[in-house]
């Protein structure tokens, strides 16, 4: 199998792809990027935690006009994964207000961004509706 690389370092690939965060060991605040100290309590000790892969849409927008090079339309969203909020696109859905609703249940899904000259495939992630 060709090598894979995640679009961002907080996406963990493998059999069960998931997001990971730096959690402050003193107050529990979570961050997707590396931290010098905690924005909430100034603690400097962090541990890795895995983020739940099923969540609920807390906010979304359907972007139809974007910067050059950004493919539209796409659905941007803020999703609550068991108390940790994450940002990402809602994928595998019609990008229209009729097909997306606040409070809808979604789960993490991955897709290919393409392969580079060295044969490495980049993997992106999004949130897709859970069909009940």
């Amino acid at each position, binding site marked *: 199998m060709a090598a894979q690389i995640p679009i961002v370092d907080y996406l963990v690939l493998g059999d069960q792809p998931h997001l990971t965060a730096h959690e402050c060991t003193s107050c529990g605040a979570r961050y997707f990027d590396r931290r010098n100290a905690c924005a909430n309590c100034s603690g400097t000790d962090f541990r890795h935690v895995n983020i739940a892969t099923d969540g609920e849409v807390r906010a979304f927008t359907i972007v139809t*006009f974007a910067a050059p090079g950004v493919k539209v339309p796409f659905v941007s969203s803020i999703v609550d994964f068991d108390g940790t909020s994450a940002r990402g696109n809602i994928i595998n859905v019609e990008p229209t207000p009729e097909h997306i609703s606040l409070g809808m249940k979604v789960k993490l899904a991955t897709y290919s961004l393409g392969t580079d*000259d060295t044969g490495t495939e980049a993997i992106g992630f999004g949130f897709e509706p859970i069909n009940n």
Partner: protein
Amino acid sequence: MSDDVWILGIYMTKFGKYPDRDTVDLASEAALAALADGGVTMKDMGVLAAGCLMGGGGIAQQIQKQIGQTGIPAFNVSNACATGATALRTAIMAIKAGEADFGLAVGVEKLAGAGLLGAGGRPKSDKNEWTPSGRYGAVASTDGRIGTDSMPGVFAQVGMEYGHKYGGTSFELFAKISEKNHSHSTLNPKAAYQKKMTLEEIMGDMMIAYPNTRPMCSANCDGAAAAVVVSDAKLKTLSLEQQRRAIKVSASILTSDPWQEACQVLPDVNTLTKVAAKQAYEKAGIGPSDLDLVELHDCFATAELVHYDNLGLCEEGGAAAFFESGATWRDGTTPVNVSGGLESKGHPIAATGIANIWEVCHHLRGEAGDRQIEGAKVGLAHVIGLGSACGVHILEKSSFG
């Protein structure tokens, strides 16, 4: 003698397109007019604070070179869309600290034709190889792949989040807020746009980021605004006419955002505004029901709604019903953005945080002409800069003369 600070002179240029004038020209016009409005000159000023967000540094000294290099301390400030309010706050702090009797604050921006703000990919590399970079180790631009960086999209989510939490919102509701502001601006000769728009026109216009269509977004334009502030002790030595037209700064508050879960995923424009409003009301000793008019940061129609709640103009969660009651139209109980707001008056970023204070002062002085809110005695001006910074100023009519 008190430690009150007063607005002695204030001015905003007409907002619009100035292809033949640069930021220094516009800032100088505003500064000179604010000085003239206050009956003072650059020689009286003890401190200068100025901002031009997109213009690089040094605007304060550039202004001095046009209107008076008197050697006073000059502060160049930059605080996103709260830059103007930050300049004013800086001048006010210098006076409160006893370092100056008079201060000048200036904000200017040239944004006509600037297009979409906040968004953008990273530069393309020559090599076709996925290479992690930045604090997230991203191998590709995340804008459009991991949500949106564009301002219309970010603020759309802010409004949608409010709707998810409290209900009552819809595309139509947000569009109606825009209809109000575009209607209000028809009475404001300094607005970039003075064209009334119907609800159908607004909803049928180009969709930018659902539910924000183009007229529901702040209007990029050019403009400048400036204010002269003075200490209470110094004001009492000035003419009765200057004292009569002076506007009391009953509260001048600047906050940044306290940490909240999710605030680094979707900017939290709510908490810091609530904190600023609470501090401002306590400092001024007045409440939201005392306000005769409010100029708040409607960078997008979806943003105006949440700030009704954040500023305590309605009960918690009641912003949609509050708007539907007609309260925020100019003939309502709490007129909001009678200038036309950022959606119609326009949003030359660094000028906005002083221009909204000019609007409130104009009414408190009884000089607002056709759009005068009759008998206005107290008003509030609010701005938010993403990152974030929030400025809230409460202003009161002079009781002199």
